[in-house]
């Protein structure tokens, strides 16, 4: 607009705005591709929002019960809820600790800064295979050996190794090469390099990844319970199968509060670390 009014006194017949570049063919292809995938995916799962209207009374009935939670479950410190919550916390703490310790070693083997090529070329693909399975798949296999909290601990430990090792290995890749070269020049061994230059440099990042997986582990406890690997999720599945929505709502409230509290705490700690 303003450009047009400026041009007019000069007597120029046409606007001399630069032409808008045409959208790149890749952009068009990308959008068409995304639309095509969406149509196929929607067809594959029979996408339909009609049930939202048809089943609405059913949902309101359940929500009616959910908004009247069984408070006694929360206020009574000896209830099943608190026992299960303690179990969940213990599972998450042990799995985070053990998994993260092992992950630090694996991360050192998985970065080209700290490991010889033959080692990190093997470690990396193995790690990505481990990470490609969800925590639940490990739990399903482990509950076949023994029930209770132990399969949950082991499943989360493996899951944590996968995540922490990947993130830490990426941090190690980005370590400042200066101290490493100094150590190489002084004839340091691999172990000394790792101990003196690499681990101290990635420690703050590493600690923040550990807090992050601890958060994930608390959330994962809901999933683990669903396959019978211990913790508070088992309680949810129990009340769900019994249609005991007031008790389930109490459990959900507690999970909600715990997850938010841990979220805030770990955000605060991470901000101080990094």
């Amino acid at each position, binding site marked *: 607009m303003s450009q047009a009014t400026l041009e007019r006194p000069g007597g120029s017949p046409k606007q001399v705005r630069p032409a808008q570049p045409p959208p790149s063919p890749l952009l068009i292809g990308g959008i068409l591709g995304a639309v095509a995938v969406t149509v196929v*995916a929607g067809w594959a799962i029979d996408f339909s929002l009609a049930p939202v209207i048809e089943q609405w009374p059913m949902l309101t009935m*359940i929500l009616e019960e959910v908004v009247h939670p069984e408070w006694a479950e929360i206020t009574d410190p000896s209830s099943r809820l608190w026992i299960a919550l303690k179990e969940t916390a213990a599972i998450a703490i042990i799995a985070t600790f053990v998994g993260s310790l092992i992950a630090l070693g694996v991360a050192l083997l998985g970065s080209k800064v700290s490991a010889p090529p033959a080692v990190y070329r093997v470690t990396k693909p193995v790690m990505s295979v481990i990470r490609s*399975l*969800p925590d639940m798949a490990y739990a*399903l296999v482990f*509950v076949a050996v*023994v029930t209770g909290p132990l399969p949950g601990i082991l499943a989360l430990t493996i899951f944590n190794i996968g995540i922490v090792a990947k993130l830490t290995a990426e941090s190690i890749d980005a370590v400042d090469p200066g101290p490493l070269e100094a150590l190489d020049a002084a004839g340091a061994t691999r172990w000394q390099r790792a101990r003196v230059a690499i681990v101290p440099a990635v420690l703050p990042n590493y600690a923040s990844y550990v807090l992050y997986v601890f958060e994930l582990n608390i959330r994962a406890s809901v999933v683990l319970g*669903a396959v019978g690997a211990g913790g508070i999720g088992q309680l*949810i599945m129990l009340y769900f199968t019994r249609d005991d929505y007031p008790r389930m709502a109490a459990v959900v409230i507690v999970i909600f509060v715990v*997850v938010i509290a841990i979220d805030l705490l770990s955000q605060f700690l991470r901000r101080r670390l990094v």
Partner: protein
Amino acid sequence: MTSATTRPKPPPKWPYTAVGLALIGIVLVAGWSLDDAKWERLPQFPGEILQYAGQMLDGVLTWPGAHPEGQADPELTYGDWWLQSLKLMGESVALAWIGTCVGALFSFPLAFLAASNTAPLVVRLPVRLFFNAIRAVPEILLAVIVMLPLFGLNPMAGAMAIGIHSIGSLGKLTLENIEAVDPRPVEAVAAAGATWWQRIRTAVIPQMMPETVAFWLYRFEVNIRASAILGVVSAGGIGALLNRVLRGREWEWGGIMLAVIIIVTILVDQLSATLRHRILHGAEATAVAA
């Protein structure tokens, strides 16, 4: 300057030792509090898991035309298991994609109401609270409480559970992208008299779009893993059958299912990573990296 050995004192080590001891203490207390953890079974684990893994590998490596033993249907082949796993995994991927679309569709406009440079405080706070609240509810809970009653035991329930949950996490990431845009183009169009909508359309969206699309793709990868879990509560995808097969200790069958999950997940991850790299760094950088 009497001697050349005036090295600086190393910083004290006791804080690290103290933190380390405290952590070990917490872990020991946690371990002791689990009274029904059958710790004595731990040494048996590696042996048994290796044995199961061996059987799984047998299933994966058997010629797909062969017939597995002990099945009710004598016509059944390993190839049928492969096809069935692929089909269900396809359903998992499809519901993860739809879920991601739902999350992206709703989180995108909401994020503009939550960013400090595009919305006033009174609008911002409730929207952010909403993002945080839905992020705190795990997908599986959303599925159980809201989506299964609504949609029944089918993939739509899983897709919507994933979608609603994704609104929270995508919303948070998108609003961080919006807040990170260079303020100068925004000021320039504002100085030229642009309205709120014009400022966003011409100065904010072009700057934050690549990162945001990359986050959508990343979220799709995360959601594929989540969709496998949702199957356990019968909200669609490969999880329901995996749960049944592994609980029934059908290791060969389970091995094939896990192999399909691993292969498809890694393939989609690679594809998505390539796309994200192309979106964020342009054609030249991608050609060099490839």
